């Protein structure tokens, strides 16, 4: 089994793993980045959402063998110090309750805003429908996404 190279948050990691291993577990148990969460293992909860070349994917449904040279970004790499506009908006709107699903929520929102800087409610619905929250933070997430979009726009 040849080693697999992954570029995570700008750093190259070489791991010994089956190419079939879900990226989620490579990140958590091999590379030691635990911000990405396990919730269901079948792509239904979105807690494991990360970026591949800036697009949101479910890392539990992405095998390490399929990643290739694409850049992986996890919650730890979204910003160096927690100041990505989405993270700041999340703090300002007091979104997180238990916080467990929030890595996935934030990564999905950041990918949405990258592709659609001023999303409407329908676009937000579509981007966020796949990420479950048990605490019920959806209304504040919507407010935070609008806030982050506005700030981005006003910052030019």
């Amino acid at each position, binding site marked *: 089994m040849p080693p697999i190279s992954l570029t995570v948050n700008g750093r190259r990691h070489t791991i010994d793993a089956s190419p079939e291993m*879900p990226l989620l577990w490579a990140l958590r148990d091999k590379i030691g980045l635990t911000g990405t969460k396990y919730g269901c293992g079948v792509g239904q909860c979105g807690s494991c959402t990360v970026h591949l070349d800036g697009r949101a994917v479910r890392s539990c449904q992405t095998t390490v063998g399929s990643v290739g040279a694409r850049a992986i970004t996890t919650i730890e790499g979204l910003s160096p110090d927690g100041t990505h506009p989405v993270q700041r908006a999340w703090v300002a709107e*007091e979104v997180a309750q238990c916080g467990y699903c929030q890595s996935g929520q934030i990564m999905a929102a950041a990918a949405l805003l990258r592709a659609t800087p001023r999303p409407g409610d329908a676009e937000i619905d579509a981007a966020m429908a796949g990420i479950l929250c048990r605490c019920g933070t959806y209304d504040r997430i919507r407010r935070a996404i609008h806030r982050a979009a506005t700030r981005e726009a006003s910052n030019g």
Partner: protein
Amino acid sequence: MASIRKLSRREFVALGLVSGSGLVLASRLRGTRPGSAEAFQPNAFLQIAPDGTVTIWMARAEMGQGVRTSLPMIVADELDADWSRVRIVQADAHPDRYGRQMTVGSTSVRSGAWTALREAGAAAREMLVAAAASMWGVSAAECRTEAGYVLHSASGRKAGYGELAEAAGKLPVPARPKLKDPSSFRLIGTRVPQVDATEKVTGRARFGIDVRVPGMRFATVVRSPVFGGKLKSFDPEAAKRVPGVSQVLEISSGVAVIAEHTWAAFEGARALRIEWEPGGFAMSSADFEAEYSRRLETEGIVAQREGDARTALSAAARRLQATYDAPFLSHATMEPMNCTASVSAGRCEVWAPTQNPQGSQAAAARLTGLPLDRVVVHPTYLGCGWGRRSRTEFVEDAVETSMKLGGPVQVLWTREEDLRHDYYRPLARVRFDGGLDGAGNLAGLSARVVSTPIGVGGGRPDQVDRNGVDGIAGSPYRFASFLVESHPVITPVWIGHWRSVGVSQNTFFLESFLDELAAAAGKDPVEFRRGLLADARARAVLDLAAAKSGWGSRLPAGVGRGVALVMNKESYVAQVAEVSVERGAIKVQRVVCAADCGRVIHPGIVEAQLSGAIISGLGAALHEEITFEAGRVRQANFGDYRLLRFPEAPRIEVHLVPSDAPPGSAGEPGLPPIAPAVANAIFALTGRRLRRLPLRLDA
């Protein structure tokens, strides 16, 4: 900190005897359970270090309800601490140092905890003032405090808490410290930034699943799919062939698969071949239905009786009967059950997302045979709790696996195991019988409730299932005559405390049936309820919800409006839901929530608890349901156990009633009214009365 163990049975104990540690104070919470061994408890523990840092040990579990922020706010306000110099430390489990650490029933702030936390801060403040007064040779009454300083205005002198801490620690602890007048609160009632907000948006917050210990293995456990079933035999070979799997072990709860990483453990568990002795339980949901129907035909055990409801009903001008149902529900916390344990000779260390650190410690001590002081339990953040994590099976799994393995291990249940081995909200059915007099007033009401008591085979056939009737019995309404009967159905299915417990389903039942009675009486649902309410706080939230929602105003075509009310754990919540039907599906457009939760520590947290409860409760109202097939749970994952998704969340407006009453629950009472508010709106819109959860138009 060795002196901490010398705590005597006094209300406050200063522990400033260790040189260099400053002032260390433990306060005891009095009177939560009079007469019990738990009646006298410390629940705050704080230290003022010589450098002025205030450390507050937080003994409660943080599962999204914001106690890491709100509890220290209470202590710090009375202490007049500089909030920017307050450090919060999650307390490890200890048999008695912090009092009862179990975080359940919305008891972190209410039920006396509020006063005890205030007294802890106030006692420390008085000691610091006394130390300053003594140092300056002035009267303590001439000194005041502000943001971490004692000030003597007459002489312009000022001393920081840090420099006073050592001297303060040697002073007697005031037994009855003077509490602030609420008008002088500086932190309480404000929206200070939540202490864990940044950790939770950067992936740094450490949940149970994120614990990493050197040399740790990853494992999962497979249990009998049938409740009460036992392991008969298993063939580990196929599991062992999965790359990364190192061992397959029998433990008392089932079979543990140990691996180099979680994925291998999960794949190994999938490959295992296990034979189970099924035990005696083989019920399907249809069998429960039949049993519940049978019970409804016989008298239950009387849980509440006011007047003579049977006579009133037989004399009523108009009588209405209806049967309501609520399914088993799973907690479905986003973080599945897990625990990390490291058992070695003479020591056991546990990291767990637990609502019950002391129970976890006791369980680990029992399994290892170690004394409690050799068992360390570190509570982590909880990926939601809702009562599920007050149990300890997942802790026992990890401790036992670590013992057998001889090294550290993290046991993580798969989502499927988690969903199929939950402590479910009880299955419940109620038959109401209501009688109206000639003027349309409610003359009599009876409720016969069938429910599964909490526990494993919990409850007794001859005892009222209190959780089963809670919310029908003990509602805020005054009925002219009222009879509540209980039919406990004992089952080996694990039954637990789900968010707002029995009140969650019983509010759906009662508030829906009251709506039926209002309609039968030809009365407005808000007015009909008002007529049954003597409690001013209940009326106030009902009126506020009605006013803010524009109750009685015209709605757009295709939108219906429904109201519901709850009194739950010293709080009052009324909600009005606006609902439409889109392509055959129920769509909740807007929810107006009025709440009186007593004095509010942090409005942002309380509003979040209420809106979160509405969204989560809407999932239960519209989708969630656990069913059984031959003793097994049918649902496996979020595909068939559906939580509410983002696009389904309504617009929510939360209005808090300003209140000087002691703090009530914030986490629970927002949930119960949403299901009946939606069902009542559906009735207003379509004329159809939906009496079964989850609400389905196609049923």
